């Protein structure tokens, strides 16, 4: 059963056709990678899933709900969480606060004035947040300010912030970009663990090592169109894919 169903999406920026009749089905409980050369439209596609961009035509359905025209916070509330290419965290707040905020958002909804209750009394939320920090290996620094983390740790924190919401769909935009090899391998292990819990993931990635370690299904995007789709083994030897990556696609 597909949890995210994308049909005939088009997106044009001025004279540039960023997405051209893109169709995509994401199966529930799988890890689906979207790969493609620079400028292929991967991030544009992801932005269409989370309400940052609205496609010109086409439809995006998540779990039976159309995501088109919804605000980013509404899309999150139906169960889609996103990890950004450059980590988006609450830099001035402590790690545990960073994870508690999404937990509150899941529990209390998009807006609730709880000005009299005290964070100190929210033992369950805090414990839950601490569990997630343990999962990503940041529990010891729970009370430090998030800005002091390294880039790799920031990304792991962001992952914990998404996971505390128990998302139905987790979107990851180049989760290992700019990481050292050891960090990349740690992240791969972490993502594998998350995948084992049955969370559906869509990963945009350049690093083929990451893609082939994680993905169960791969879609290849080039110049705004899906040029190939299939299991990792099928993609590896696909002539069109090699052509796209060698840069000779439409010479």
């Amino acid at each position, binding site marked *: 059963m597909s949890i995210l169903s994308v049909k005939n999406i088009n997106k044009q920026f001025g004279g540039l056709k960023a997405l051209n009749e893109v169709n995509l089905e994401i199966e529930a409980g799988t890890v689906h990678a979207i790969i493609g050369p620079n400028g292929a439209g991967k991030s544009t596609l992801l932005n269409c899933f989370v309400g940052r961009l609205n496609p010109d035509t086409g439809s995006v359905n998540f779990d039976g709900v159309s995501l088109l025209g919804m605000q*980013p*916070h509404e899309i999150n509330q139906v169960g889609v969480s996103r990890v950004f290419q450059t980590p988006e965290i609450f830099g*001035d707040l402590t790690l545990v*606060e960073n994870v508690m905020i999404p937990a*509150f958002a*899941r529990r*209390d909804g998009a807006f609730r004035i*709880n*000005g009299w209750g005290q964070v100190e009394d929210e033992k369950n939320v805090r414990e839950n947040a601490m569990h997630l920090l343990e999962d990503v290996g940041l529990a010891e620094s729970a009370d430090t300010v998030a800005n002091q983390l390294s880039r790799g740790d920031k990304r792991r924190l962001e992952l914990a912030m998404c996971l505390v919401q128990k998302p139905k769909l987790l979107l990851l935009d180049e989760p290992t970009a700019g990481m050292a090899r050891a960090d990349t391998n740690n992240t791969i292990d972490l993502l594998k663990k998350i995948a084992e819990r049955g969370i559906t993931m869509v990963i945009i990635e350049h690093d083929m090592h990451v893609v082939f370690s994680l993905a169960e299904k791969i879609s290849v995007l080039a110049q705004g169109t899906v040029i190939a789709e299939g299991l990792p083994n099928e993609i590896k030897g696909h002539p069109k894919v090699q052509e796209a990556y060698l840069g000779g696609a439409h010479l």
Partner: protein
Amino acid sequence: MIKFNVKNKDHMLLLGFIGVVALAPIIMAPIGGGYPDLLQKFAIFGIFAIGFNILFGLTGYLSFGHAAFLGIGSYTAVWTFKLLTMNVIPALILSTLLAGVFALLIGFIVLRRSGIYFSILTLAFAQMSYNLAYSVLTPITNGETGLQLRHHDARVLDGLFGVTRGEGLPSTSLFGMSMSGWSGYYFCGVMLIIMFYISLRIFRSPFGMMLRAVKSNQNRMSYTGLNTRPYTLAAFVISGMYAGLAGGLMAITDPLAGAERMQWTASGEVVLMTILGGTGTLLGPVIGAGVIKYFENIFSSFNEGILMEAFSFLPEFLQHAMVTVAGLFVGEGWHLTLGALFMVIVIFLPGGLMEGIARIGNVFRRWRKPKPVAPTEAEAAASE
């Protein structure tokens, strides 16, 4: 996991705060501030600044128009005195609520923008209110003369409860307790404590955490499923209500409301108070308000005679030279002192006076430890 008990610390803070408010007449006496009029101003501007800090300190939205809500509070209070009763309770409730309603309307419009555009919009709105109060709204505001009590005002509720009309103008009261002198100060002091406690609760609440998240990263907030607009609007309304209450209290001390209370300089003053004391800290705004009002009152009252006396131990030509130089900084020149102080603090203590206090505290703690352990730079940064 939890290193210290936040609640106990907060209780101590609140107790200390109540102690200082209660003993302020004694504490302030040696430095010439132990009289009710000045202390009342501390309390009122303290409330104004605490409220402003809920918006600016937590969400980072810098409003340059908060004096408008102060003015609305004052006008509402005086109108309540004129139409309903000289009792202060209805006046305070109405001025807080009406300022809240205005804050809701204005906030709904101006919060469409953030950063400098938000500041400019609030400034424009406040100047608009100021000019309206002087021109079109004269029937309500009584223009330049300011809104005053009159002997023949209706005062419906007072009439119903059979309060007899005296010969002169009536004065504000709390069920018969006069609102001038020390009782007036203690009434404002109690309000300050209540408003401080509310702000303490908000700071430590999930709502307060969301407001800090707004300041930190609005983008992450929306992708975390939170709608940022109502959060900022709520903060704006709450701080507007604080300002309305402060305006109402001003009218209680002196039942006269003028449009100059809404001018941009008044809005700027509360920004200075908050930054001077320490933006985003609990006590900072109150301290900042106290320092600025103290300077305004004490330094502006110094004249040449007092200076001559102060430097009388010097030879005559030196005495004259010192008086000429120091004279620039007192009397009408007190703004110069304030400006210099403000610059020094912003440059050397960007966290305001609260940062200074924290640094002194750290020095003490290090000094009291038997083994002097030099902290690493990271530790020092983390403790600030």
